[in-house]
């Protein structure tokens, strides 16, 4: 009989919440963290009594008891009302926990009786240098390093997309065809970052048929169809301009965003999942069959994210790092067999047996990578 084992978990889960997140212990008997560390908040319809107005940097747990008659919420804001953590929908009589990681600085707490307005606010000061944002300096460094990678890729993405767009507008189909997989390389390396901005990703990289009713088929794959299927780019200029505008938007957003270490780890896995579902099957670049360019880029992007996390991972599980090194090398070697000139063979030039080998490689790599997020989050 398989029985869900939840007991040990509650503790583990609450202890591993990364960055700002709400730890919800329901009725407030939170088994997770030591009660002595908690800052109690007595919320009523008119008051928000926070037991302490300061804390040392690191993980801070608020226990909010709603003693009023209205449903309430509790927030921690950084300057500019940036939400560091929130717990919503605390019904009268209930008590909830909010676990939030805070670095040194000044913050505000807020109770929102009736869940409306700016709420009843109090200052909250955090001092000292925390053991870490999510535990240690190595993880902090990982996000910085990966951010640098994103910046380098977005720079090339804009450059190559511009060249691609210009070739289309100049009516130079051959040049545009050659640039298509190259521009996409930079996109595919950082795709999980792009996917954070949900409204732009489908516009830039949506495949035909994925649109909701009323939504237009745009972006890379529309131009791919013009180039390879319709073979008419005389009217593709506006669509190309639109792609460039969208890419510029996402580049600006991506350079502003900072990913958490857990997002980085998940990104590394998601890139391989992209390969396993879309590239192996040839669905992604169904008109040009340039899927192996995307394949290689996804693997490289995944490797970059893991490389950023590497110092932290070495400390936590050196054997896993060794496995990942071996599997990345093995995947690269398998892919290398399909190199053609400066690029790659077309998807439709590969046999089913070739694809099976590549699929096995990706599964073999993605399985250990799926453990990284847990390691990063775990203490």
């Amino acid at each position, binding site marked *: *009989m398989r029985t*869900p084992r*939840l007991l040990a978990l509650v503790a583990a889960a609450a202890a591993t919440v990364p960055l700002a997140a709400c730890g919800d212990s329901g009725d407030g008997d939170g088994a997770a963290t030591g009660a002595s560390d908690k800052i109690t908040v007595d919320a009523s319809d008119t008051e928000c009594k926070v037991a302490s107005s300061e804390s040392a940097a690191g993980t801070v747990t608020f226990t909010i008891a709603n003693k009023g008659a209205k449903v309430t919420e509790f927030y921690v804001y950084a300057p500019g009302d940036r939400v560091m953590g929130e717990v919503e929908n605390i019904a009268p009589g209930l008590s909830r926990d909010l676990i939030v990681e805070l670095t040194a600085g000044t913050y505000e707490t807020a109770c929102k009786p009736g869940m409306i307005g700016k709420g009843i606010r109090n200052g909250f000061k955090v001092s000292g240098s925390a053991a870490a944002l999510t535990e240690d300096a190595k993880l902090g460094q990982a996000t910085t390093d990966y951010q640098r990678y994103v910046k380098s890729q977005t720079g090339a993405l804009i450059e190559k997309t511009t060249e691609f767009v210009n070739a289309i507008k100049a009516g130079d189909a051959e040049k545009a065809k050659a640039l298509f997989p190259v521009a996409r390389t930079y996109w595919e390396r950082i795709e999980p970052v792009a996917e954070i901005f949900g409204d732009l990703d489908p516009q830039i990289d949506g495949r035909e048929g994925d649109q909701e009713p009323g939504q237009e088929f745009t972006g890379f794959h529309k131009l791919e169809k013009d180039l390879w299927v319709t073979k008419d780019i005389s009217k593709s200029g506006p669509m190309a301009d639109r792609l460039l505008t969208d890419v510029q938007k996402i580049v600006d957003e991506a350079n502003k965003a900072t990913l958490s270490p857990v997002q980085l*780890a998940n990104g590394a896995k998601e890139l391989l999942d992209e390969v396993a579902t879309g590239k192996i099957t040839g669905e992604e670049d169904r008109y040009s069959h340039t899927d192996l360019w995307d394949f290689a880029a996804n693997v490289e992007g995944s490797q970059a994210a893991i490389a950023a996390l590497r110092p932290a991972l070495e400390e936590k599980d050196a054997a896993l790092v060794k496995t990942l090194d071996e599997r990345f090398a093995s995947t690269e070697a398998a892919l290398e067999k399909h190199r053609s000139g400066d690029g790659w063979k077309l998807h439709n030039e590969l046999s089913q047996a070739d694809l099976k080998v590549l699929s096995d490689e990706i599964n*073999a*790599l993605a*399985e250990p990578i799926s453990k990284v997020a847990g390691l990063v989050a*775990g203490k």
Partner: protein
Amino acid sequence: MQVQRRKVIGLAGAGVLGVAAAGAVGLQVTGDEKTTPVASTSDAIAFFGERQAGIVTPAQDRLHFVAFDVITKDRAALVGMLESWTAAAARMTAGLDAGTIGAVGGIPESPPDDTGEALGLPPSGLTLTIGFGASLFAKFGLGEKKPAALADLPKFPGDAIDPAISGGDICVQACAHDPQVAVHAVRNLARIGMGVVSVRWSQLGFGRTSSTSTTQATPRNLFGFKDGTANLKAEEPALLDEHLWVRPGDGPDWMTGGSYLVTRKIRMIVETWDRTSLLEQETIVGRSKGEGAPLSGTQEFDEPDFTAVDGEGEPKIAKVSHVRLAHPTENNGARLLRRGYNFVDGSDGLGRLNAGLFFIAFQRDPRRQFVPIQTNLARHDVMNEYLRHVSSGLFACPPGLRAADDFWGRSLFA
């Protein structure tokens, strides 16, 4: 019922004890002919024991059979995976999650170490049986340990074998009374094996087409005939020793107590069969469709009399009938323990059922058993008009694991 389930968890959690408790159930079934089956279809079947479970275990209703190719050259990685598989198999057959953390046990950022679709389901009589194909021995320089009996099957007349759904380095036969439980087991083994093995092919089956125990009623195949009437049965230990289990001196020691597994995916052209007259169907099979009696007798278990003739002097059981051609008297006394399953893989695009029999047979030596029997059938059986053999496999299944610290393949890789 709930109390029993909890008991299973507690015992299995304690390790070998749980297995021993479940083992008692299996022993009762195989040990005493008069005992009616005590195991309900939801109970656990012992994983550890002298023999691998899933061979003489009374055939469960559902099958998920999978063949893997080993994709690493790293022997230690393969051995490590086989150890992990064994631990997972011991857990899953006891009705537990594949991993120690479980489907919902771990930290939220990690994928669970069990896929979860069997949460809340009982063990459902799950057995997992492993076999090693000839190709594995070549890959790992195990030539000396390769049994002569593991020689490639010959091409039989009329074979239409598709290599993509044949062979494989390692097979796992998952049988259970609930398809969800069998699929769950195969899926978790495949997941654990990623990077070391790759699924080559797999096959789902339903409706066991054999009885491996006298306690079981004889089921029917998709031709509508009872199948497995004259099968080797768990309650015939002397016959099993003669025909099923590999004996000392038969081949390499690591196979002593094991058995050889032949699989054949046999597509049945059911649409043409269905417009064949009852008389012709029965003549082809050599048994009556209703009772399953040989055409020389009246009861299912009547011994066929191949000398019996009708009023016109013709044999009552035709020379080219399936029952005659497959009978031990026509094949130097060779017998098999069959435990095949019906399959329907949807339709074939021409509106025909893509259906048939996933034939599974265990034996002491395929060279003296399956090969001559199938040769005889392939040459003469009029049923062939309605059959296509599309996949084939041969695997060496070692004896059982006797202790919890043993693992699948240890005798081979030691």
